[in-house]
């Protein structure tokens, strides 16, 4: 399988949007959640449209717009989005008004904009595109499902290029609720100390990340996407390892061929037990990079990892913030991403140089 990442657009808690150096100035946080750094939308979205868009919709539309501009594709053959939580701010607003106003006099905008396919729909409306438009809401597989749909459209010749994106936001209410489930830390932590203070819970994050995937190569592609696989609730570490071995074998790659493995370590002792084991077995000689201290944990965080992998290959450098040794003078040609969300949703992505 070969398809090409021609463009990306990424709004994240790091300086990743627009013409900025590739993670040269890491943003440090000391708290319990990481918040996206947003651009000035007035230059990107029609002001008449902005007033109805909540924060996550603006982030999604702006990231998609930047991605299409970079790829020089005005209207893609398909728009596919993945989100686990959807437009939480609007959902929050709508439900709060419903309770406060006893289910009467509800304004339509928050309700209309609260659906999970709003961002894909807004992108389609702005582009005046009647092409394929779909949204996937599968918890920790939302981005991977959107990506799989895009891959299938390209492989079956139903599209020559697809816009695939992942969007998730964290709000005060959702953070409070998820924190009660034990997902997040209760005490402030520096994101750069996340891995040296492993304990219960991780640091919450969010992001809007888009990719333009094309069937044919061009002179300005980031990288090739060679493989995607997901597996759900492995019963033990041996099963997780077996899935990784099978994935590499399917793509005729040996672990020693992989220049860098990007893993989803998040500072939560329970989640990181997966990597405590993998780093002793299949990844024991691999060069590893963590990324969730940069973007935080959220169900579609694998999109940030894919953006990172594509950027490393295109720029030919591993950013210093990843704190990866043994890469001096080494060209990163093949990168494996292993991500998991709460040890239930595991995904594997294989990215290589063009």
């Amino acid at each position, binding site marked *: 399988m070969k398809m090409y990442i021609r463009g990306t657009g990424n709004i994240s808690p790091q300086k990743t949007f627009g013409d900025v150096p590739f993670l040269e100035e890491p943003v440090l946080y000391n708290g319990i959640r990481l918040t996206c750094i947003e651009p000035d939308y007035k230059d990107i979205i029609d*002001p008449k449209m902005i*007033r*109805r868009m909540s924060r996550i919709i603006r982030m999604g539309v702006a990231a998609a717009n930047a991605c299409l501009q970079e790829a020089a594709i005005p209207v893609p053959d398909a728009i596919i989005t993945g989100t686990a939580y959807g437009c939480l701010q609007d959902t929050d607003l709508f439900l709060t008004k419903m309770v406060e106003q006893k289910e009467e*006099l*509800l304004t*339509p*905008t928050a309700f*209309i904009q609260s659906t999970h396919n709003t961002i894909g729909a807004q992108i389609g409306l702005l582009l005046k595109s009647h092409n394929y438009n779909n949204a996937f809401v599968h918890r920790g597989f939302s981005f991977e499902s959107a990506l799989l749909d895009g891959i299938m459209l390209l492989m079956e010749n139903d599209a020559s290029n697809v816009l695939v994106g992942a969007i998730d936001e964290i709000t005060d209410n959702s953070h409070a609720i998820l924190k009660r489930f034990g997902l997040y830390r209760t005490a402030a932590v520096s994101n750069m100390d996340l891995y040296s203070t492993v304990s219960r819970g991780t640091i919450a994050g969010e992001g809007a990340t888009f990719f333009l995937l094309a069937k044919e190569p061009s002179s300005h592609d980031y990288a090739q996407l060679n493989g995607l696989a997901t597996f759900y609730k492995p019963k033990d570490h041996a099963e997780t390892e077996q899935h990784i071995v099978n994935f590499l074998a399917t793509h005729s790659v040996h672990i020693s061929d992989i220049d860098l493995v990007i893993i989803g370590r998040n500072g939560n002792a329970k989640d990181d037990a997966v990597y405590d084991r993998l780093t002793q077995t299949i990844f024991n000689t691999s060069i590893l990079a963590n990324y969730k201290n940069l973007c935080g944990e959220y169900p579609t965080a694998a999109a940030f990892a894919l953006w990172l992998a594509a950027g490393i290959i295109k720029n030919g450098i591993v950013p210093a913030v990843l704190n990866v040794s043994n890469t001096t003078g080494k060209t990163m040609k093949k990168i494996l991403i292993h991500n998991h969300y709460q040890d239930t949703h595991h995904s594997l992505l294989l990215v290589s140089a063009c």
Partner: protein
Amino acid sequence: MDKLMSDLKTQIIAQLNMQDVKPEDIGDDQPLFVDGLGLDSIDALELIVLLQQHYKIKLSNAEDGPKVFQSVRTIAEYITAHQNQAA
């Protein structure tokens, strides 16, 4: 009437989240839809809710909508007429 129109402009801006518009930017007789302020059908629903929330007035006939929501002045006239009726 002037006070009512001034209040309406502030309420419309808040209800429709028009962050870059100030009350003085909206003319009393300026068309609200399409070429004027550029409102659309979703905004019309928001204006109906606004009338109910702030003035306890229900637009009884949907066909009256285009006439009532033509401008800030026509909305104010509709409110005045219906508040007087209620009194």
